[in-house]
């Protein structure tokens, strides 16, 4: 029989650079964002926000505002007294949670904190009212400098904690005996990564629609985590989860800034229920700068010990993280600083590690997750130290890394902070980058371009990250929410068309396309025929969303698992219809064929026989064409990359320009190379912003002085060079699909590579690039201090 079997080749969609299905709506302006939705009788909120960074509220005068036509009400904390405070618990010992009233009660702790809520017919009159409201403060000393705040308990931001340090943690692995060794060398530095804003194009926006008839609430939210928000709202508002539907429509970028719970989200939802009206709030750019969770702001003192041959012996690190006024939900303010220390040892074989981290509250906007969480800072520090070490013993930057990178044969490897690296091509990525034509070209350019007008240099960074994290590991240290699994539902409707439903919330990552590619390969249909639904808690009952490079890994794994179950169901029915054995059936682009006859059916016929036509199938075969499975990879998948940047510094203006860029990366199986490259490009672009331009600045009174896109500079297309990407596919056999997360890597590697390139360009001078961004002003200050020239 076998020799008569037709050989049918199922096309593979995984690995193909399929154009993103969602692009046409984005590019033609037809995407639908929360702010695009307007509902009859909808009211808008305008928030009265604190202009002081640390103050007691004496009184709020709003009588005049109430008189304006179009103003429904002005509400203060009293009107929200039945709501629970926002607090973010953690299992970490020595952690102190902060408690935030959704509307400030007695005291404000950062500029931008909500003091009162104006309910208005529209935003215009709401802002008219804002001008009439007076808030009288009793100013308290601001808490600005994290080092001072950590050591000084006189000015407390949260009196109940008794300290400004909400968490201190130490890690120790190995010994400190090396200090006594004669041959030991070391390099060290005090590094700073400036505070930054995630800056999504779409500002945050929430619209809550309360249905009087059913009592159900639909919250349209520009969020990355609809599932988490639904669960949190249910608790805070005391409403059953099935009465709240959180729906993320098209979301115009997140980068972590839309990955936490915000007071505005709670207020909008609460008021729509209380006032029985649709309530909307759209952030403007000023509010976005003031209130969307910010990133970084760490001071890191670190020391790398090594021997004469450049073999690393030990790493010591001390991190102070300035987390801002409150510990953000659900991640806690410990998320970023703890990951900085956690990831500090990087992909290197370092036997001894001693680290300490303090998370300090200050009267600035809360920090939260940002693309790369912790790793951009950790990699910046370690990779600078590695280059400094190499320079001190006249070793080239590749050799020292090759010598110390963990060898594949030693994987899995547990680094000093406890993170376990599994299958990943650390050395392979580095080698590939060095052997690339790109590298030859940049050496060529470096040699040729030596001239009087510019300094030129290249820099490398190598890193590892943990992605697609399963239930054994907490995405945020100590966080009591399991983010390790995702569920996929795949169903075939009466017309034979296939839908995949996920709890992830794609906001530009192309998951609508990649998940379709995965399902297409498993079932045997065309990706463009599959509808992917996501970001809707009424459709997917449990799941947390899109962040932490998890959606393709865990969502993709769930898609495979579910598709396999559904395929079995399809084959069972088809085998009956085609009068053959399920093993003798192939499904190609939606045509189900028998391999030993010329009989075939399509999905519409299949669905018809299952759902509609009551004759063809016996009742027991009319099981609905539906499958739902959860997937949990248990651990995480290690992604790695080497970045190389070539930079040029104008000797007069001191402006740094990135000329060329290479990313040599291993994200396991590449689902869609075009999307992967796009994610890498976007990530690197953000990393260039971190390295050269972006800086959130607060003055010593806690006033934000960079609250618009003129003063806060994000890179434009002109600042981004051509970015080359080389792939390595190292598989993790246990993971379904062998995917690894890669959405954050660009931002992780770029700051370090660029810092190293700048240091290389200035290698003739006795300088240390230990702060980012390296803008003209920064280099000028080095120059002024006589360190350059």
């Amino acid at each position, binding site marked *: 029989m076998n020799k008569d079997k037709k050989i049918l080749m199922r096309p593979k969609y995984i690995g193909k650079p399929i154009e993103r299905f969602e692009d046409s709506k984005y590019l033609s302006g037809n995407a639908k964002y929360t702010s695009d939705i307007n509902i009859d009788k909808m009211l808008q909120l305008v928030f009265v926000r604190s202009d002081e960074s640390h103050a007691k509220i004496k009184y709020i005068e709003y009588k005049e505002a109430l008189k304006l036509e179009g103003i429904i009400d002005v509400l203060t904390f009293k009107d929200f007294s039945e709501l629970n405070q926002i607090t973010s618990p953690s299992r970490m010992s020595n952690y102190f949670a902060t408690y935030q009233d959704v509307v400030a009660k007695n005291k404000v702790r950062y500029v931008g904190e909500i003091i009162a809520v104006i309910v208005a017919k529209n935003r215009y009159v709401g802002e008219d009212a804002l001008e009439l409201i007076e808030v009288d403060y009793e100013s308290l000393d601001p808490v600005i400098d994290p080092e001072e705040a950590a050591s000084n308990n006189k000015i407390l931001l949260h009196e109940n904690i008794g300290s400004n340090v909400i968490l201190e943690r130490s890690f120790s692995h190995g010994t400190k005996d090396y200090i006594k060794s004669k041959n030991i060398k070391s390099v060290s530095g005090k590094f700073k990564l400036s505070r930054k804003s995630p800056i999504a194009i779409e500002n945050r926006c929430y619209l809550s629609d309360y249905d009087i008839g059913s009592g159900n609430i639909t919250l349209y939210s520009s969020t990355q985590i609809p599932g988490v928000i639904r669960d949190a709202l249910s608790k805070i508002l005391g409403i059953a989860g099935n009465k709240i539907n959180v729906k993320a429509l098209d979301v115009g970028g997140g980068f972590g800034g839309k990955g936490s719970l915000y007071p505005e989200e709670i207020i909008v939802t609460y008021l729509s229920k209380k006032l029985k009206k649709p309530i909307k709030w759209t952030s403007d750019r000023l509010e976005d700068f003031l209130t969307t969770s910010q990133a970084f702001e760490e001071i890191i003192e670190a020391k790398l010990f090594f021997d004469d041959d450049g073999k690393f012996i030990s790493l010591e690190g001390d991190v102070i993280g300035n987390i801002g006024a409150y510990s953000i939900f659900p991640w806690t303010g410990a998320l970023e600083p703890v990951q900085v220390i956690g990831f500090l040892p990087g992909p290197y074989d370092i036997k001894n590690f001693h680290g300490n981290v303090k998370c300090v509250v200050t009267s600035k906007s809360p920090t939260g997750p940002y693309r790369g969480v912790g790793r951009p800072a950790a990699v910046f520090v370690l990779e600078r130290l590695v280059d400094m070490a190499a320079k001190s013993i006249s070793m080239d930057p590749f050799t020292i890394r090759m010598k110390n990178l963990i060898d594949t044969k030693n994987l899995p490897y547990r680094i000093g902070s406890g993170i376990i690296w599994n299958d990943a091509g650390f050395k392979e990525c580095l080698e590939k980058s060095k052997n690339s034509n790109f590298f030859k070209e940049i050496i060529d350019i470096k040699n040729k371009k030596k001239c009087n007008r510019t300094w030129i240099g290249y820099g490398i960074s190598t890193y590892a990250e943990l992605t697609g994290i399963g239930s054994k590991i907490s995405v945020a240290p100590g966080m009591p929410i399991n983010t390790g699994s995702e569920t996929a539902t795949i169903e075939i409707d009466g017309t034979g068309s296939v839908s995949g439903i996920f709890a992830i919330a794609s906001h530009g990552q192309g998951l609508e396309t990649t998940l379709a590619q995965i399902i297409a390969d498993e079932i045997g249909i065309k990706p463009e025929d599959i509808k992917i639904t996501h970001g809707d808690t009424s459709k997917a009952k449990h799941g947390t969303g899109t962040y932490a490079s998890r959606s393709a890994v865990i969502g993709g794994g769930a898609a495979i698992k579910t598709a396999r179950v559904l395929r079995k169901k399809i084959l069972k029915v088809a085998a009956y219809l085609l009068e053959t054995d399920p093993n003798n059936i192939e499904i190609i682009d939606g045509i189900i064929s028998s391999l030993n006859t010329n009989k075939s059916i399509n999905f519409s016929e299949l669905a018809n026989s299952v759902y509609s036509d009551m004759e063809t199938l016996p009742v027991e075969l009319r099981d609905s064409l539906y499958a739902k499975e959860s997937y949990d990879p248990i651990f995480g998948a290690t992604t790695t990359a080497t970045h190389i940047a070539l930079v040029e510094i104008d000797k*007069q203006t001191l*402006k740094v320009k990135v000329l060329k860029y290479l990313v040599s990366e291993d994200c396991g199986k590449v689902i869609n190379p075009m999307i992967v490259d796009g994610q890498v490009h976007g990530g690197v672009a953000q990393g260039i912003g971190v390295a050269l331009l972006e800086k959130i600045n607060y003055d010593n009174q806690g006033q934000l002085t960079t609250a618009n896109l003129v003063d806060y500079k994000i890179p434009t297309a*002109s*600042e981004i060079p051509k970015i080359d990407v080389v792939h390595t596919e190292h598989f993790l056999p246990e993971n379904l699909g062998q995917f690894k997360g890669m959405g954050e890597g660009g931002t992780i590697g770029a700051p370090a590579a660029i810092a190293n390139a700048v240091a290389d360009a200035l290698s003739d001078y006795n300088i240390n690039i230990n702060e980012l961004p390296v803008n003209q002003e920064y280099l000028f200050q080095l120059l*002024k201090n006589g360190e350059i020239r």
Partner: protein
Amino acid sequence: MKPSKFAYVNAKTLDEALLSLKQPEAKIIAGGQSLVPLINYRLSQPSTLIDISSIIELSQISVQDHKLEIGSLVTHNQAITSKDITKFLPIISFALEHTAHKTIRNSGTIGGSAAHADPSAEWPLLIMLLDCSINIISYKNSRTILAKDFFISELTTDLKEDEIIKSFNFPKIKQNYGWSFEKIVQRSGDFALFSAGSIIEIDHNIIINSKLCVGGAGETPIRLSNIEAIIKGKNIESNFDITNDQFLSLLNPTSDEHASMEYRLYIGPQVIRNVLINSIQNYKDNKND
């Protein structure tokens, strides 16, 4: 960031605009690129916005015997692509290519830029540099004012509330000359951290006249009359022997989010020296053509 309530007048003629402008707190809007952010932040709360963008007579560029007259509604892009401007005063087109981004250059106008009077902006620098005079009109009368009397301080000009800028007279330069413009930015399309433009008129290798103007160096664009005097009469091949103090003496920059005063004082002399050298080079290149 929503403006306070205002009335809107789409003026079809200059007279209509001038009449409307007599109302208290009325304000002209041209390209809106500077005004709209201000009204959105409610830093400006006009009672009436008078849109002049349909007044065709304000968007003309005309070449006359001794001057180029540029209407106040001429956009940055219109100036960049104008054959007359490129022919007679190529420095204008060149400098404006460094102004903001294309979409902004499509809307932003010379009149709006001059009236806004940002000391880092290109048009104000060009207007000061090129000894431009400005034709201003109100409902009652009209006047012409020299650039140096027009710019008073940062975001402040001599313009009265009921006045509209009609056009700008740019004198043609009769002698052979070389020109140069340089702008230092942190990021493409930004306002200048420091900028400089120069026109050097040369006869038989002798500098007979020069114009030198800097932006981002004080409250208004600043003409460096001291340096203009030092180089006058010098041979273009000579070493001008300008000391750093002489370069600095008229500069009065401040610190802001973008750069410190010290950085501006550091970069200033280098940029000024660059435009001097490049102007002479430009003169030589043109002669050889």
